[in-house]
C-alpha cells in the first residue's frame, strides 16, 4: 500500500511506466493472479520478494533490474537503467502459463471498484505498519481499494430497479469500514434509480448512503454509491489503508464507495480479496 501511494503515484515514475513498460502486479502470498507455472517462471525474476519488491525483465525472461521500496527516486533510477539495457525480443514465443486459470469476473456480471478513505481533518496515530511515524500521513490520506463482483442475475435485477439481497450481503463485508463492529441493519432502498438510506452498525453508529443506479437496454450503465460513516483503527498490516493509523479508541469519519468499473480496462479484472472464499458469489 505504501509503495502504491508513494512510488506508483509519483508523476515521473508514472510517466516512465506509461511510455516504456508493460506493468504487472502480483500477490506473493495468496497468488490469486498467479498459477503454479507463473510462480516457477517468476522465481528468479522477483517473484519471491518478501513483503514487497519491484523488478524489470524481458518477455523472454532476461532480468534487467531489481529494486522496490517506498521512495520514488531509486525506483525511477532502476527503470531508467533497465531501459538502457533493454533489447527488444522479436523471436520469443510466449507459452501460456495458465492465464485462464486466474479467477475472472462472472460472465455477464459487473465489477464494482470499492474504495475508502479517512475524511480530512483526522489525526494520525502511528503504528509499526506505518513505520512508527514515517508514513503516517501517507496512510492517512491513502485510498483503500478492493473489488466486488456482481452476478449476471444480480446485475439484471439492478437493471430492473431491484436491489438483490445476495448483493447486499456481499457488500456488507465492505461496509464494516464505515460501521464499527460491522453491519446490523441495512436500510438502503433503491427507488427510481436512487439508492439511499442509512446503515446501522453493531455498536449502533449510523452511516448515511447516497447513490445512483442507471441502466439502458437491460444493462447497468451506472452504479455509484457513497457511504459516509465512522471508522476505527484497524491493525491488519496496512490492508485497511487509512484506518491503519486512526487513533486508538476513537471513531473517525470515513467514506466508502462502490463504483462501476470500466470493463474495457484490464485492471478491472483484479480479483476481489474475498473471492478466495468458496461461497463468495452465493
Amino acid at each position, binding site marked *: 500500500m505504501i509503495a502504491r501511494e508513494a512510488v506508483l503515484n509519483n508523476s515521473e515514475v508514472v510517466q516512465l511506466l506509461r511510455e516504456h*513498460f508493460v506493468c504487472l502486479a502480483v500477490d506473493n502470498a495468496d497468488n490469486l493472479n498467479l498459477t503454479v507455472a507463473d510462480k516457477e517462471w517468476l522465481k528468479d525474476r522477483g517473484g519471491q520478494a518478501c513483503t514487497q519488491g519491484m523488478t524489470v525483465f524481458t518477455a523472454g525472461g532476461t532480468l534487467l533490474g531489481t529494486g522496490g521500496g517506498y521512495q520514488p527516486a531509486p525506483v525511477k533510477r532502476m527503470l531508467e537503467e533497465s531501459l538502457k539495457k533493454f533489447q527488444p525480443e522479436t523471436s520469443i514465443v510466449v507459452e501460456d502459463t495458465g492465464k485462464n486459470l486466474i479467477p475472472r469476473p462472472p460472465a455477464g456480471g459487473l465489477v464494482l471498484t470499492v474504495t475508502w478513505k479517512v475524511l480530512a481533518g483526522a489525526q494520525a496515530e502511528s503504528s509499526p505498519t506505518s513505520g512508527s511515524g514515517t508514513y503516517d500521513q501517507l496512510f492517512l490520506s491513502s485510498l483503500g481499494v478492493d473489488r466486488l463482483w456482481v452476478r449476471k442475475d444480480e446485475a439484471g435485477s439492478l437493471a430492473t430497479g431491484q436491489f438483490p439481497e445476495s448483493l447486499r450481503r456481499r457488500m456488507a463485508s465492505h461496509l464494516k469500514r464505515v460501521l464499527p463492529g460491522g453491519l446490523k441493519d441495512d436500510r438502503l432502498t433503491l427507488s427510481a434509480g436512487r439508492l439511499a438510506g442509512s446503515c446501522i452498525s453493531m455498536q449502533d453508529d449510523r452511516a448515511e448512503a447516497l447513490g445512483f443506479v442507471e441502466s439502458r437496454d437491460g444493462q447497468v450503465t451506472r452504479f455509484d454509491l457513497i457511504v459516509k460513516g465512522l471508522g476505527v483503527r484497524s491493525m491488519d498490516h496496512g490492508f485497511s489503508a487509512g484506518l491503519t493509523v486512526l487513533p486508538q479508541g476513537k471513531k473517525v469519519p470515513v467514506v466508502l464507495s462502490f463504483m462501476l468499473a470500466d470493463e474495457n480496462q484490464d485492471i478491472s479484472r483484479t480479483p476481489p480479496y474475498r473471492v478466495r472464499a468458496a461461497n463468495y458469489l452465493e
Partner: protein
Amino acid sequence: MRKQTLFLVSLCLLLIDSSVGLGDDQTLSRAEFDQLHQELNLKNQAWASLPWKVTLTEARESAVKNGKPIFLVVNTGNCLGFV
C-alpha cells in the same frame, strides 16, 4: 467562577476528543456526493491509469507485441487491489 469555566472548557475538550459521531441531521447531500465521488474515484489515481496486465502470460504477450520490458510489482496482497 474560574474553576467552573475551567471545568466546562475541560468537559468540552473531552467531548471533542471522544468519538465524532454522525449527527441525526447529517445526511449525505448531492453536493457532498459529487465531491466525494471525485476523491474516491479510482480513475483519479495516477497508478490506476497505467497499462496494467492482470496475468503473467498477458504481460509477456503484450511485451513482445509492443517491444517493451515488463515492470513487476510484487506485494503481500495485490498492489492493484486489496493491499
